[in-house]
């Protein structure tokens, strides 16, 4: 009986882990890009766009060590509409020019060099800056403050970060 339960558990754990890899970090309400655009227009919120890849090691490291932080999760969820793009998927999305294409093609045309790549947009859905690779919890808070508190309107990101 124990053997059967162990096998069932292993199967379930394997199933869950495979699915977790494809997804953005847990307990965040990440939306497909086109749905995030619509949501942001309705909520008048800036967008945090996350380009990830299935099985990307730095993405998984950030999920475990950064995005799992409760305060960051609360801040990001409150301040931004969150969008996730799987850079290898065939998921269909509608771009803001009306074109329908796949997430992979959107990432390719956005010239994403690696994952994770994060693009922050203003409330007016204007891209503000891009960050690639591992980011710490503190850095993520700084970027969040820079956008949501409107510092980008008067200050360059580099200048803001050095003053912080």
């Amino acid at each position, binding site marked *: 009986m124990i053997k059967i339960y162990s096998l069932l558990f292993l199967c379930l754990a*394997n*199933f869950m*882990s*495979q*699915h977790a*890899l*494809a997804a953005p970090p847990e307990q965040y309400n990440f939306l497909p890009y086109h749905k995030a655009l619509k949501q942001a227009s309705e909520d008048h919120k800036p967008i945090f766009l996350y380009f990830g*890849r*299935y*099985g*990307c*090691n*730095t993405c*998984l*490291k950030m999920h*475990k060590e950064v995005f799992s932080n409760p305060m960051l999760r609360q801040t990001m969820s409150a301040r931004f509409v969150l969008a996730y793009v799987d*850079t*290898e*998927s*065939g998921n*269909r999305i509608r*771009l803001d*020019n*009306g*074109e*329908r*294409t*796949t997430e*992979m*093609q959107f990432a*390719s*045309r*956005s*010239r*994403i*060099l*690696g*994952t994770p790549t994060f693009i922050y947009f203003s409330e007016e859905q204007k891209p503000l800056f891009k960050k690639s690779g591992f980011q710490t919890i503190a850095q993520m808070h700084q970027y969040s403050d820079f956008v949501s508190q409107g510092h980008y309107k008067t200050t360059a990101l580099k200048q803001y970060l050095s003053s912080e």
Partner: protein
Amino acid sequence: MKYTALLVAAWVSMLSPGVFADWQFSQPIAVTRKAVNGIYHHLEGAGRIHIATSGNRIAVLWEDDSSGDPQIYLALKTRDDPDFNPAIKVSSGDEAYEPAIASLTDGRFVLVWEQDGSIYASTFSEQSLSKPLKLSAKSLASHSSVATYNDQIYVVWREQQDETWSLQIARLTTTQKQEIELLSIRPVEAQPVNTPVLFPSLATNGKGLYVAWEDRTAGHTRLKFSFSANQAKSFIEPQYLNEFYSNRTEYDRGNGVTRVSIAGFGEDEIVAAWMDKRRSGGYGIFASIGSDGAFGPNEKIHGPKGDKLPHSNPATSGNVNDETVVVWDDYRNGDSDIWLTSLDEDGEWGENFSPAIAAGPGEQSHASVALDETGGLHLIWIERDNPLEPTRLWYSYGK
């Protein structure tokens, strides 16, 4: 002596990359009308086979939203025609995506596409399309591709049933009235898998049928392939096509790969090309040559210039005369241009070559090719001013 050796080396180096050095491409011919705001053409099908030749005919198949929704269109010309005929709408339904085309004998073609979650096939002969035949069952189906050999037709697609995925392969033939007739359908793998399978590519040669696809069961995307030597009645156990690369960190599952394209060439050879992220700086274009149900080592085929930039959308083609070509797009010269390479007589990949008609200002991308039996290269691609602008399809013939 040293001077003579240097001269010889220089002479040899001038010769060796020369596979495409003498290629000339015709003035481009528009497949679709001038770009119009809000209309976007796509060559994004599984295996990227959007052009085929049969007899004197050239056929191009794509998706665009000129009707208001994504639908599939076919345009044809003869080799002598200066222009393509007006496009024929192939699909019906609400939305259709990711078509593929292959040649039959006597100026005929077979077309496959996804329409509202099902896979359809049709033939074009004389001046008309046959009634589309729905191939997929009740499950959600997508990512279809097609290959032919001596008028035998094979179609592959993926099906999703609840939370499992599988690849299905149909064997088809045509009736005297040119209608599609279904002979068999079977899965490639014995059991469905719990992770998505994506964008299968299909190819045939004198030895059998190959299928290659994206598989996620390893926790990251790997390319798998399988082979059937008995007309899709059975398949070998799937094998890995791309070599495994990992940084060996606590979290690392392995590098990314995506969008494989395969084509048969010669009597019994097969070429595969794909996007591979085994080095920093985005995806490179890697390829492998195979035969007898197996593939050889992976080779990086994009050139050193722009090596650390992303490369996208590889497509392959081959002919019975042992020639094969791979095309893709990258922006090593600033904007996106079409690039290609080919195997030379020694089996080495030649230098990258960018046809001037598919390069320069603006974005030229998403090439698809058909290498005919005379070694002529039929090339189509998408042109747009920038990545968000409306699009247009172009054709050129290289010799």
